[in-house]
Structures are given as C-alpha cells and as structure tokens.
C-alpha cells in the first residue's frame, strides 16, 4: 500500500550517504536530496533514481560507431596518468574488429617508459595493425604517420593512444594543439575524442574533464575499473555540468572487459 507520509529525515540521510559515498559530491547530493524531501519514501526513491538517470542521458555529439563512408574515423584516447587509456585503446580495437571493421592502433605515447611496448604487446596478441614512433619522439609525428598509413590501407578506424598527463601541466596539454593541427591538416572529419576517467577518482574528475575540454573537444567519456568497489559517481557532476556522455565502461583487465554505457544499469549499481 502506498504511504502518504513524507520521507523521514533518517531515510533522507541514508540516501544522502549513498550518494556521497559514491562520489557525487556535496553540492549535487544536496540538490538531489532537496528535490525529494517532500515525497513519500517510495516515490522519493523512484524520483531520485529517475533524476540520476536523466542526468546521464545525453546524446553523443555524433555516434562514432555508426559506419560512414569517411575513412579512417579517428578515435583519440586521452586522460590523466594511469586511468586505463592504453588498455582501453586495445579494448576498443577488439570491439570494433569483432564488428568486422578494419582497425589500426597508433602508439602516440612516446613519453612514458614502455608506453609503446605495452600497446605493441596487445597489438601482437590480437593481430591489430600498429604504427609506432620513437621513444622520446614527437607524438604529433606518430599521429601524422599513422593517419597516412590508415588512409592508404583503407582502415575504418584509427585509434590513437596518447600519454597520460595531468591537466595542470600546460606544456603537456599544449601537445594536443599540435595533434589537432595534424588531424585538421589531414581533413579528418571524423575525429572523436574520448577522455578516460578512473572510477576511483573523486571530484577532481570534474576538473579533469573541464580542463581537457579546453584543449580538445571531449566528445565522450570512458569510465574504467568499475569492477572494483568504487561506484564512479563523479560522472554525475561531470555529465550534469558538461553534458558530455559516458560512452563506454571498463570492467576488468582483459580485452573483452569493455561495455557500452547503460545509464539505468549504472544508476541501479549505486543502490546495490
């Protein structure tokens, strides 16, 4: 039977704790809780889950996965250090190959020790085409060469793995300007930039997306390591504010541990 009593202070605090522990942050949490404080408990929870889902439902600027005649489509993977870019680049290559696309990987992390070898390892294991440069060399040059190679080999998707970098490092962020320039000069019409967020990140995630978006348009997000205990809730303030959709999630270290983002499932996960 439906209760007509307002949701209790105790129940509101329970819900508030769930949201805060999931990294939604105090501001968005206060807003969402204030929206349901006059509802009855059942309606309150339903309304909360609906609002959370609505926050996440953003249309992608363009769906890079819809086949078109432009070749190659470029997917650039960016993000701060250690978030799972290299692993995700390999996972995307695998996913696209499974859908009968011809893919090529570009090892444009010329900065970190064994950055190239790590991606090369994945490419050899699953037989992906890979273009690499010199360790310590120019990342934009790798982008340039790999685009030409992808174009001449009639590749459907070129996936570019870049070096991890903190958004606070201006000189590293400026490297994206060089990469953008190369792709613009190649008349790349289908360049899709994906920012990788670690599910364990707290509210710094919002800073990361905001700043990266000032240097390259961020078209979509990948949230990794959701197989852990972190809920990845910082995506709520991020998507709420930036209206950039989460497109994929990483759920493990294997090549198949990669899924399309499902907003309803993600919201249910908060309350498990």
């Amino acid at each position, binding site marked *: 039977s439906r209760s007509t009593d307002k949701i209790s202070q105790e129940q509101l605090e329970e819900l508030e704790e769930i949201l805060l522990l999931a990294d939604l942050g105090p501001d968005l949490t206060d807003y969402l809780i204030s929206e349901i404080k006059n509802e009855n408990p059942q309606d309150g929870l339903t309304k909360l889950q609906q609002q959370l889902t609505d926050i996440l439902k953003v249309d992608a600027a363009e769906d890079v996965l819809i086949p078109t005649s432009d070749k190659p489509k470029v997917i650039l993977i960016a993000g701060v250090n250690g978030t799972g870019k290299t692993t995700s680049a390999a996972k995307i290559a695998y996913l696209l190959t499974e859908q009968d696309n011809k893919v090529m990987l570009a090892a444009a992390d010329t900065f*970190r*020790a064994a950055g190239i070898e790590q991606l090369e*390892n994945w490419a050899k294991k699953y037989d992906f085409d890979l273009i690499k440069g010199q360790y310590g060399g120019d990342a934009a040059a790798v982008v340039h060469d790999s685009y030409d190679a992808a174009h001449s080999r009639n590749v459907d998707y070129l996936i570019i793995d870049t070096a991890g970098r*903190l958004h606070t490092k201006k000189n590293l962020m400026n490297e994206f300007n060089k990469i953008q320039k190369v792709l613009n000069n190649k008349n790349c019409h289908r360049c899709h930039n994906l920012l990788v967020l670690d599910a*364990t990140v707290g509210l710094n995630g919002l800073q990361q997306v905001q700043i990266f978006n000032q240097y390259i348009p961020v078209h979509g997000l990948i949230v990794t*390591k959701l197989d852990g*205990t972190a809920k990845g809730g910082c995506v709520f303030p991020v998507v709420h504010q930036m209206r950039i959709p989460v497109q994929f999630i990483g759920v493990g270290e294997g090549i198949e541990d990669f899924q399309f983002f499902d907003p309803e499932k993600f919201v249910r996960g908060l309350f498990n």
Partner: protein
Amino acid sequence: NLTSRITTVFTSLKRKGYLSEKDVDNAIRDIRRALLQADVNFQVVKEFCQNIKQQAVGERVYKSLRPGDVVVKIVHDQLVELLGQEYSPLKLSGMPPVIMLVGLQGSGKTTTAAKLANSLTKQNYKPLLSACDNRRPAASEQLEILAQKNQIDFNPVDPLSALKSAEKAVEIARKKYLNPVILDTAGRLHIEHQLMEELKDIKSKLNPSDILLVVDAMTGQDAVNLAESFNKELGLTGIILTKLDGDTRGGAALSIRQVTGVPIKYVGTGEKIDDLMQFYPKRMASRILG
C-alpha cells in the same frame, strides 16, 4: 576557500567573547562541505566535524582575535594532528631488507619503485629493483627502462610466478650484497581474493620490513575501502600518495590515515625520478582546506 569563508561567517556575527553553539554550527556546515569537496571520506568528515564542534564551542575569543580565526586554527591544527605529526622513516631491516609496493591498478607503483630506489641510492644504499608484475603487458620492461636510465640494479619478472620473481631477486641481492630489494607488484583490486593471497604468500615467504600502499592522490570515497582491505590482509607499514603535482585536494590522505592509522611516508610529485618527497602534514592540511 574555506579559511576566508569561515572568517566571513563570523565577521557578520556580533563579538560576544566566546563561541556559541550556533556560531560553530554555521562554520561546521562550511567545513563539512569543504572537506567533502576535498574528497575526504564521508564518515571521517562526520567524526571530524563532531570533534571540531566539541573543541570550538565555548572557546574563548579575546578582543584581539577574530572568532573565525579561532575556528580556522582549530580545524587546521586538528587536520595536522590527524595526518601524523612526525616523519617516520622506512624500517629497512632484514638480510637483505625487502620493501614491497602494493596498490590498485595504475596508482603509480612501478614509477614509485624506481623513485624510491633512486632516493635510497643517494643515501648510499645499493638497491635492487625487482619486477614482480607478470600480468600487465610490458610491466617488467617499464621497470627495466627506469632502472637502466638511472643505473639501478634490476631483476626481471619470472613470467610464470610473482613469488618466484621476488625470491630470485632476494637470492641475487644476497649474493651481490644489494640492499634493499624493492618489489614492484602488479596492480590489483582488494576484492580479488586470489590476487590478495598472492601478496600474502610473498609476505609470508620473504618477510618484507616495509609494505607500502601506493595510492593515487585523486582517489575519492573509495580510498577507505581499499586501504582498509589492504591493511587488513597485509598489515601496511606505510602509504605513498602519488600524483600530488595535480590540483586534487587529496582528502584521501586524511581518510586513509584516520581509518587505518598507517603513516603516510612519501608523496609523488611528478613523473621524473626525483619527484618523490617526504610527507609534510602541515602542507597536506593546507591543501585539503583549500
């Protein structure tokens, strides 16, 4: 930032000569929000604020002091105290001493292992970097490149066994009088039972004097979960907080320290070999307060 906000809250109140409960409650709301925005764990924030309230209510405010400054000082001092007062060095006991680095995927273990070895070399140790990650592609190569670049002795991973990699390294260290052995282990989730058993196995067979949890400074509320689990399973001797060269407030530092009691020994402040510093609680407190 929090300091100016608390001060503003009080300048609008009349001077009474002591802090009333209502005065403090107003400040506490701002403190709570600032700490949550700094990624301090929800439960830790709750306890911290209750603590501050107890300390602040009734506190005398002399004509020369502004009430807001009194509260700010109480908060700052409490943060510094909780973060740990003195620097506690590595234990480094054993023949040879063994340091084991553990943590979640991507937290900075491999890079930190090399930094630690470099720092110990400068203190006249002769460390051996031991690659024990047989899972991540090119993990051993990554550590090898860092070792070679910085002229540090290196033992490659045994692709079949992390334990055998570590045992081999200790054996080599004994023969060559290398000290200490630094074990770089594979990143893993604290909820993966088999992988945690792997670490417990290495610990029981090699008896490391230092087991350091490497944590990404931008970790949010999950910091408490992972630190508690790793501590419960292994008994940590120290924490290393990485990527503090970013702009994350680093509330995870307070959460982990408060919940596990394990001291934070070092902080990573960049990707270069020298970017490893001793942990300073006062600096961390100012950073968390924003």
